[in-house]
C-alpha cells in the first residue's frame, strides 16, 4: 500500500484545504492532536475505505483502531482490501 496515494485520497475525500501529503506524517494521529480530524471526517473515511478498497468496517471500535494513523490505515487496507 502506497502511503502517499492514501494521503492524497484522504485530502481529497475530506476536502482538506491547504494540506499536502507532505504535511501528514505516517505515524501521527489523524484525530485529536495530529491532523485534527473530527467525527464527521471519520464517517467520510469509512466511505473512502468502502469506495476505494471495498472494505466495510464492522463496528466503531474497528474504526478507531484503523484510523489511528496513515500507517495503521495502510496496514489494514493491505490486509483487508477486496479491490
Amino acid at each position, binding site marked *: 500500500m502506497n502511503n502517499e496515494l492514501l494521503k492524497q485520497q484522504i485530502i481529497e475525500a475530506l*476536502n482538506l484545504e491547504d494540506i499536502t501529503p507532505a504535511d501528514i506524517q505516517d505515524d501521527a494521529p489523524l484525530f485529536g492532536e495530529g491532523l485534527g480530524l*473530527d*467525527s*464527521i*471526517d*471519520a*464517517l*467520510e473515511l*469509512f*466511505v473512502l475505505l468502502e469506495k476505494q478498497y471495498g472494505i*466495510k468496517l464492522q*463496528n*466503531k471500535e474497528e*474504526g*478507531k483502531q484503523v484510523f489511528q494513523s496513515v500507517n495503521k490505515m495502510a496496514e489494514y487496507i493491505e490486509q483487508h482490501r477486496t479491490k
Partner: protein
Amino acid sequence: MKEPASKWQGKTDGLPWMHRSLVWMLRYIPVDVIYAVMDVVIVFYMLFSRSYTKASYHYFRTIHRKRPIPAVGHVYLLFRQFGQVVIDRFAVYAGKQFEIELEGNELVVEAMKKEEGCVMLSSHVGNYEMAGYVLRPTKPMYAIMFGGEKQFVLENRKRELERNGIRTIVSDDEWSYLYSIHQILQEGNMLTLFADRNFGSPKTIRATILGKEANLPRGPFAVAGLYEHTTVLCAFVMKETKHKYHVYVRQLKGNNAQSYARAFADELTGVINKYPHQWYNFFEFWEKD
C-alpha cells in the same frame, strides 16, 4: 472554515413538572385559552431572556431591515408565534390535532422506492416535529435527538416520534451514533437531521441566506454528500394559522457538502421570507458586517 460564534443548542426550557402540568392542562383547556395566557407571559419572557431577545432584534434589524421600534414589535410577534409552536408540541402530546397541508410528499414516496438511503434536512423554523405526524416513509426513518435535552423532554419526543414510526438516536460525543448513521444510509434507510446545528464537527460552510453570509454547520451536509445516490430532501413545517400547519418538502440537488449547503440555504431563504416570525435560532446566526 470558521467555528460558529454561538453554542446555543436549542434546548426546551422549563422543568419536568411544568411540562407535565402543561400537557395535563391541554387535555382539559382549549389551546386558544393557553395561547391567550402565553400572549402576556411572552412579554416577561422577552424581558428576562435578554440574549434571545437581542438576537431576534438583530435578526429583524439587519436581515429584514426593520426600523428600531417596528423591530421590537416583530420580536414580540416572533416570540408569540414561538410560544404557540411550543404549546402545539405539548398539545399533540395531550391528544389535540391540527390541520396539516402537505406539499411535496411525492418526493418522499419516490425516495422510498429507491434502494439507496435518504437524508432529510430541516432547520429550527416553524414546528418540524409535526412532520413526523404526516410524512409516513415506508422505510425506517431515524431522527437524531440532542442529548443535552432534559430527560423528560427526550423521553416525550422519543415516545411521540416512535409512535409515528420514527426511530431515534441520541446525539452525544461518541462515535457510536456516527457509526449508526453510516449503517442507516448503507442499508438504504431515511435519516433526518437539523442542518443549522453543529453535528459531529465544529467546521462550517459559508452560505448566503436572505442575502447575507452565514456559517452553516458542515456535519449535516457532509452526511448528505457521503453517498453518491442518496436522495437529499429538506422539509419545513410552518404554522399558517392557529390550528393549521403547512409542510414543504423539497429536493436538494448537489454532489458534495458545499453544493447541498448552498441548495439548502436557497430553500431556507424562501421559507424565512414567507414566515419571518418563525425563525427560532436565538443566537447571532449571520456573520457580522
